[in-house]
């Protein structure tokens, strides 16, 4: 691992792990902690946090989303930077919390939500826009392909930031994914309500992933990876899903490290 400047020194960051990651993919928030601390940030984990609420709001359960919006405020209101490894959850906070707050007609709630939205970042946004880095000192000598995920692209609008972070990883080989911006078919409850269409879409995505002959499929959202990865695993594909944060957390082995 080369010398990495502590560009995050003095920055106190609240990690929003997300419920999906807490329940199924703890390696991803761990990786976020590792990357941010490596860059000098002080990372805190407000234990009041739960879920952004998109499974409720996107399914039309507005009343059921409101307590979660209040809980998000309780957990994170004291922080200048709230960072999450999910383009979709960032999008939910940014897009749906203000919409639902406005529906209540509560001006105070709207102001609080708007203020916290402005301090909520998807991991690539925080690294590139706030810390101003693309090289985070990562090492990952593998062939990968990148799926940009719909909500990262179209709601959170992270643009090419994840790609620029990947390009700066030492040893990595990035292969283009055909129809990369097409949906994988997850869509939250869509995958349960319309399982046949969802699987047909996931199969297309898995086929394009297979065509890349990549060792890893990278994305900024574990829900999409759960969907595509589920099909890849069923097909005994050689391509494994991995969250962007886990690649960024990976560093070149040192002598002591290699022996662990």
């Amino acid at each position, binding site marked *: 691992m080369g010398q990495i400047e502590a560009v995050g020194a003095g920055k106190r960051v609240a990690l929003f792990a997300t419920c999906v990651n807490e329940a199924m993919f703890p390696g991803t928030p761990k990786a976020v902690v*590792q990357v941010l601390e490596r860059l000098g940030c002080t990372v805190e984990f407000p*234990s*009041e946090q*739960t879920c952004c609420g998109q499974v*409720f709001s996107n399914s039309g359960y*507005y009343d059921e989303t409101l307590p979660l919006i209040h809980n998000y405020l309780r957990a994170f209101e004291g922080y200048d930077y709230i960072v999450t490894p999910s383009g979709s959850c960032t999008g939910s906070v940014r897009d749906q919390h203000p919409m639902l707050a406005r529906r209540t007609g509560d001006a105070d709630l709207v102001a609080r939500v708007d203020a916290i939205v402005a301090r909520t970042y998807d991991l690539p946004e925080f690294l590139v826009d706030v810390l101003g880095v693309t090289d985070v000192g990562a090492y*990952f000598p593998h062939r990968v392909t990148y799926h940009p995920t719909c909500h990262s692209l179209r709601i959170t609008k992270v643009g090419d930031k994840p790609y620029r972070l990947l390009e700066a990883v030492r040893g990595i080989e990035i292969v283009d994914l055909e129809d990369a911006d097409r949906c994988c*078919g997850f869509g939250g409850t869509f995958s349960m309500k319309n399982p046949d269409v969802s699987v047909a879409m996931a199969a297309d995505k898995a086929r394009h992933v297979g065509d890349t002959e990549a060792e890893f499929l990278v994305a900024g959202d574990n829900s999409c990876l759960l969907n595509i990865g589920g099909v890849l695993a*069923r097909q005994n594909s050689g391509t494994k899903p991995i969250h962007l944060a*886990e690649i960024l957390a990976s560093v070149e082995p040192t002598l002591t490290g290699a022996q662990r």
Partner: protein
Amino acid sequence: MTDTQTTPDASPTGPRPLKLVTQNNHGRARLTPAPPEGELIDSPPFPEAARRELGLPVQRTNLRHAMTAIRTKRADVVAELDNWEDLRAAGAAIKDDVVRHLDRYLVQLEESLTRAGTVVHWARDAAEANRIVVDLVKERLVDEPYQEVVKVKSMATQEIELNEALEDAGVAAWETDLAELIAQLGHDRPSHILVPAIHRNRGEVREIFTTEMGNYGKPAPADLDSQPVNLANASREHLREKFMRAHVAISGANFAVADSGTLCVVESEGNGRMCLTLADTLISVVGIEKVVPTFADLEVFLQLLPRSSTAERMNPYTSLWTGPTDGDGPQDMHVVLVDNGRTNVLADPVGRDALRCIRCSACLNVCPVYEKVGGHAYGSVYPGPIGAVLTPQLRGTASSVDRSLPFASSLCGACNEVCPVKIPLAELLVHMRHKVVESKKADPLVSAKGLGLHAEPALMKSASWLFSDGRRWSAALGAEATVGGKVLGRVTDHFGPLPWPLSKWTNARDVPMVPDETFRHWFEHRGDRPDAKGREHLASEEGDAR
């Protein structure tokens, strides 16, 4: 029909008897090919219909090829304009103004149309619109040997099912758009707003023409192959006969200009121009949201529409008419302005954005769900994302198909990016889901026959309770390790097929093992861990087991 062959058929020497195929609702022989049985509104819910459509491999291939081609072409021609975003904003603003002041613009439109010599009729719903058209048609065909009309492709007339109303009244309505003709002759329903036969390939079209054309007029050539030019020629010959003897033509309108009383039809084949100019009587059925304030506003829409729909820079046949012209074209012109649920849409301040729609189909063409299942899964003449938000507003959410439509999307948002009038389709889908959920909550019996997940409202309520307090969620996760992770994690790292309802997920996908340590526990105790500061790369162990 886009090329320039102009030799008409010799004028008919006498009426060619229309062949008896099946019976209509009155037990009389049908005049036109019978569409599939049943009403669209009685279609199965989307998930069920989608499963049916997914089982049609030829259709899936046809759709994939066609959608990929049209999507790519659209992206290319849109990229040519550096003011595309300005045009979209202008289109949205004009339509918002129309919707906001619809009452005023409609009165102005009626005055302008009347001044230009067009007779204006108002229809509250489909039945009223059909009655008006049928009466006008019957009156004009009273002494004619051919009880028939020719039609320009029109979504409004499909929506009100005018063809069947005319059929019931003993009048044959002939579709003259090539793809509409394919759907009609194929005893089929259109599956796309713009390209109604997109689910068919050339071989299927040849088959339909060869089998059916002779039953309803001039037969297809015996040696017809599936070359596009020959298929187009067969349809030209078949339709020419009908164009030349038509007394009444029926159209829709893409735009109705309030200040000038001008109607505008945008089409690609010239069949529309034939209908609009050759008949004695022209009846245009127009949804009330089709009004634009001024003639100059067409400048915006005639740039937005072709690039968004057919991916063309300019539309091939753009017909504009402002009442009858002495000695040229139809002398008897009528407009039927149809509500049919549009004022219900207007009453919803969020949902009314759907009234901006100019029926370009760009949202269908980019929709990954539409591409998989095609238009027939939506139980409506309006499929795809716009159909999923418009149909349940026009028809309400009483039927199971209408309640399922807002959920027929993964909310990927691709439609939002291409809509030429910036309809926030993903947001409207969520809004309509909310309306469906509210109606389910209000009537538990509705939910019981609803979307399959009968217990959903109760489940969502419990989950909301769990997630509204970090302590509850933390307890649910487990103090150190999840129970599943502790026990099952020793045996396997993946789940295969699981019982219902999880089978909906696991029939085609594996699920990773739940973790054996909670993130919260790791975070609190990470100070004494070797992996606290960074994960050193070891080739065999990246990522969690998924």
